[in-house]
């Protein structure tokens, strides 16, 4: 039982962090950033030295954790901000569909860039191996990593909430997410807020990359896309643009996946995702605006 709970929480953590990264950017610029998953993949491969060999040449992955974590976070934030400056900034005035297509294209550019440097073969890496030891809690044996995933996610969520609620920059970001042009008329600098949102979103992508890399031990250039899909669904279910909703829906999706894995009859288990997506359709039929409708989008439509 405890095992199921922890599985659900740690899978949900990944989805929640991913959904948060998407919701942050959607909030300030109404952009559904499909390149987010490829930023995750990029961060994972930042651990390696570029080579197309089957063997991974570990580079940053060898660093002690107190250097490794900031390095990867910086990679994610840096790439994300670069995307905004080089690509998305040109599309500020464009309609959301155009921006979405641009983000798709950008995602493929990043993915093929990785393909060029690293080839498409999945590589194995043992990232922070000391975390894979099991620990015993209340009679259940849990991988230490799972515990750390959950704790890290909670720390990130609390930290982000404090940042948004208590700091001036957080206030400006929340105002801009709700009504961008009104915030600008009050002197809030558009570029600063957008770059801030991209940096945060990129750092969240990096956090996912670290957790995912440590959990699976295999690096694959497609890996970002699968998390991205779930995370995107979580942002929609949560109510596009609502940060709280995105996190909540991320955890719900994680829980749904794990519970179905356990509860479904054995024969149906390979089709687990079909059931999860079926549940998604049901939720959207009853609450098309998402679980927590974001104010900014509601009033705009």
């Amino acid at each position: 039982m405890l095992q199921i709970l922890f599985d659900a929480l740690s899978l949900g953590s990944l989805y929640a962090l991913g959904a948060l990264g998407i919701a942050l950017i959607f909030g300030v610029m109404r952009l559904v950033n499909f390149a987010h998953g490829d930023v995750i993949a990029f961060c994972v491969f930042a651990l390696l030295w570029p080579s197309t060999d089957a063997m991974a040449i570990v580079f940053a992955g060898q660093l002690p954790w107190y250097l490794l974590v900031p390095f990867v976070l910086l990679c994610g934030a840096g790439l994300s901000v670069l995307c905004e400056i080089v690509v998305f900034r040109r599309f500020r005035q464009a309609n959301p569909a155009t921006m979405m297509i641009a983000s798709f294209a950008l995602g493929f550019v990043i993915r093929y860039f990785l393909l060029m440097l690293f080839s498409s073969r999945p590589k194995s890496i043992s990232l922070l191996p000391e975390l894979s030891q099991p620990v015993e809690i209340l009679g259940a044996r849990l991988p230490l990593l799972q515990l750390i995933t959950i704790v890290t996610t909670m720390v990130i969520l609390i930290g982000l909430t404090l940042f948004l609620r208590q700091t001036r920059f957080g206030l400006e970001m929340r105002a801009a997410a709700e009504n961008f042009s009104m915030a600008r008329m009050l002197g809030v600098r558009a570029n600063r807020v957008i770059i801030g949102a991209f940096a945060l979103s990129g750092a969240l992508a990096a956090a996912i990359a670290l957790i995912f890399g440590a959990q699976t031990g295999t690096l694959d250039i497609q890996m970002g896309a699968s998390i991205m899909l779930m995370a995107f669904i979580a942002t929609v279910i949560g109510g596009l643009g609502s940060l709280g909703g995105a996190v909540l829906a991320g955890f719900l999706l994680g829980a749904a996946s794990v519970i179905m894995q356990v509860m479904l009859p054995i024969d149906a288990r390979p089709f687990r995702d079909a059931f999860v997506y079926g549940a998604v359709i049901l939720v959207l039929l009853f609450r098309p605006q998402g679980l927590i409708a974001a104010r900014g989008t509601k009033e705009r439509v």
Partner: protein
Amino acid sequence: MSLLALSDITIRYSRLTAVRNVSFSMAEGEILFITGPNGAGKSSLLRAIAGVTPVAGGRIDLAGHEITGQAPENIARLGFSMVPEGRDVFGSLTTEENLLVGTGMHARERGWRSRAADELEAVYATFPMLKERRHGQAGLLSGGQQQMLVIGRALMTNPRLVAIDEPSLGLAPNINDQVYERLIALRAQRQLTLLIVEQSSARAMMVGGRMILMRGGQIVLDGDARTLGNGEAIQAAYFGYEDN
């Protein structure tokens, strides 16, 4: 020297021309009403000054700087504060957070924090109701309270010129009277320059000051609100009798 000067402003939305070759200027301390029927281009004009609607031609100067084509956040820094139509409170933020959003632009100046705190107290003194609801969600305030909030919010940036788009929209007449009472008191207190857009000229005639009447994207009358208001010229201009 004038605080605000528009010369030959034209605003287009794709093929529709909303404002055509409009010029006027405002002196410091003046109160100016822009009135006119729906679709006369009043709001477009305000939005162009604020920098959120691009102009197709002409030039705008504010406090000695050309602001044509400038970003809204830079125009705000020159002392222009806008209360847009429909109020646009940040509904998910608290009342106090709404008031504080605009104070960040002075964050590079020394002592801005204490000045922002003073400013906050001044706004609360003018609108005590806002202080009562300071930690409540702004989206839950009534229409009249929201109107007071956005006026307070506009004042928090310590502006030289405040532009208000249709403060009467959606408010009961007695609430509207209260809003104007506060506005006029504030103007006297702070030597504010006020630019107010209203659909009807009745309010302008009551308050006094200068009035510009627009129709079809152009200025048709410009003069003292009280003298203009009593003439038949205003009715003709407002309803466009001369066209028929």
